[in-house]
């Protein structure tokens, strides 16, 4: 039985709607009704080609990362699981950068995100092989550290070997995600991949609830754990690969949001999925608005702001967990 507070979903939906509207209006120039009514070509282009794709990408990517975080935490029954902390995002970035380095990214706009997805799936496979369901917290965290440091080393190596004079900036851009100046083209590429991945994850919801009874408990309920594992692998890989290919690595969304919302859904992993997606969308929108409102000629990187907000939160979370355990 899925129990949750009835007001939770409408509230989250309203929050996302308000933030989406704000994200389309707020920026280095505030669009008011007057400027819009004038209908000059520049305002129209800024709105349609910059603001709208940016806001929608924040919704889709934030939502996808929130969903992926909730699913990974549910499946691994581990509060530390998240595509960012366990190195799945950086594996996806390595895949994308590898396709740039080999020169195949120029063949077709879909090559780079698909390479990102392959990197993500490979990362998930490695994680499950190393740490899996029965693995301890320690194995999982060590596997995550291994994946992140390996992939970040790989990205830096490939980009500094490439002949582009912008290699250093490009490394930073992959490590610290951003949504600035993305276009409708990015939206068209990311959306179908992320929707496919989200569907794969969402259809695992029964298994996630059953897993709260433990592995053998879930098996006795008729859950094919092998299939669930591969479905999650693929789903998270698709989501993270597409997000990273478009926006770079954005951490902490998948980690923070499920923690914030878990008490509100009485700790049911399946009931957490949708609220987590909405919460992730809201958090990323808010961060992306904050980035634009800070003073200065050019913008801060969104990934920096998410980490600045997320790290103290994570600190408080760990501290309270420690007190509860001791």
């Amino acid at each position: 039985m899925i129990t949750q507070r009835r007001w939770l979903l409408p509230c989250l939906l309203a929050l996302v709607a308000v933030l989406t509207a704000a994200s389309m209006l707020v920026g280095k120039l505030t669009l008011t009704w007057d400027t819009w009514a004038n209908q000059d070509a520049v305002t129209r282009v800024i709105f349609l080609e910059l603001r709208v794709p940016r806001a929608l990408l924040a919704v889709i990517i934030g939502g996808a990362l929130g969903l992926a975080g909730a699913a990974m935490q549910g499946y691994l029954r581990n509060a530390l699981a998240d595509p960012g902390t366990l190195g799945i995002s950086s594996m996806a970035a390595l895949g994308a950068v590898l396709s740039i380095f080999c020169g195949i990214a120029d063949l077709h706009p879909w090559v780079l995100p698909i390479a990102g997805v392959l990197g993500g799936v490979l990362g998930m496979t490695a994680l499950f092989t190393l740490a899996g369901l029965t693995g301890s917290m320690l194995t999982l965290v060590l596997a995550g550290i291994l994946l992140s440091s390996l992939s970040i080393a790989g990205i830096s190596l490939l980009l500094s070997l490439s002949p582009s004079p912008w290699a250093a900036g490009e490394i930073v851009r992959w490590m610290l995600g951003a949504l600035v100046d993305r276009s409708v083209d990015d939206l068209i590429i990311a959306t179908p991949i992320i929707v496919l991945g989200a569907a794969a994850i969402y259809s695992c919801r029964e298994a996630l609830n059953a897993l709260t009874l433990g592995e053998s408990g879930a098996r006795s309920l008729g859950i094919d754990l092998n299939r669930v594992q591969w479905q999650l692998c693929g789903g998270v890989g698709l989501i993270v690969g597409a997000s990273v290919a478009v926006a770079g690595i954005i951490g902490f969304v998948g980690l923070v949001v499920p923690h914030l919302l878990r008490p509100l859904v009485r700790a049911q992993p399946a009931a957490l999925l949708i609220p987590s997606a909405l919460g992730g969308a809201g958090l990323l929108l808010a961060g992306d608005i904050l980035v634009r409102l800070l003073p200065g000629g050019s913008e801060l990187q969104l990934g920096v702001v998410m980490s600045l907000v997320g790290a103290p939160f994570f600190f408080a979370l760990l501290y309270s967990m420690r007190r509860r355990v001791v």
Partner: protein
Amino acid sequence: MRGYRVIAALALSLSCGPVLADDARAPTRIVSLNPCIDTVLVELAPLAHIAALSHYSRDPARSIIAKLGNQLPVTYETAEEVVALEPDLVLAGQHSALATRNALKRVGIRFELFSVPLSIEASHAQIRRVAALLQQPERGEQLIARIDAAIAAARPAANTPILTAAVYQPGGMTAGTDTITDDLMRIVGLDNVPAHHGIHMHQPWPLEQLLRASPHILLVNDPRGSGSMHAERVVQHRALRALAGRMQQADYPVRYLYCAGPTMIPALAALVAARDRTLATSQRAP
């Protein structure tokens, strides 16, 4: 302990070498570690006196002297390479690695530090300083005269309308206040828009502001980039294509952007070409 004393003695003997050298003689084994100083050095010193340039000088995307750079030896800015060349003068930029400079200091190699010139006057002063170090003051003045002549030739005719312009390079990079590009644009009769929007030195400029300002001329890197990196994708953004009719794009390769000195001569020519082409089309258009 004994091993340490041997090393100390060795270091001492190394450090004594250059001190004994006659300081009044012009240096004949010169190493430059900075790509901008490279371009000044090849103008002022006889090529036989250049022991090595920086490795950037071989990259045609980043240096205007790539052809020459490929004929001369280069270093990758490590103390080992520099010491092996036994230079009598090392010219380094302020942003060179501190560890390398300290290593050179320990070995006792004479090096001179140069800051990034933020104006044409500062660039001229830097050329004079290099010329004095090389004991080639006449060559220095000749180079400065050539730059000044290029500046004089680049000034617009009287009552030429002032056009607005902005540099827009991969990664959304632009040049704001306190840049050589800003100075050069003023000379050519272009109004550097990012300088009015809080951009200081070289920073990325949000596309929204660029579209809102819609400068007459957009100075872009020549489209040799593959377009798969984030940095290169932003200059091909749909929003820019949608407003392509309003802004004239002109070639301004990235190698003109970060150096002063002799680089200013081709940079001015590129700016003049951009200005004249835009003026010609705007006269034809109405």
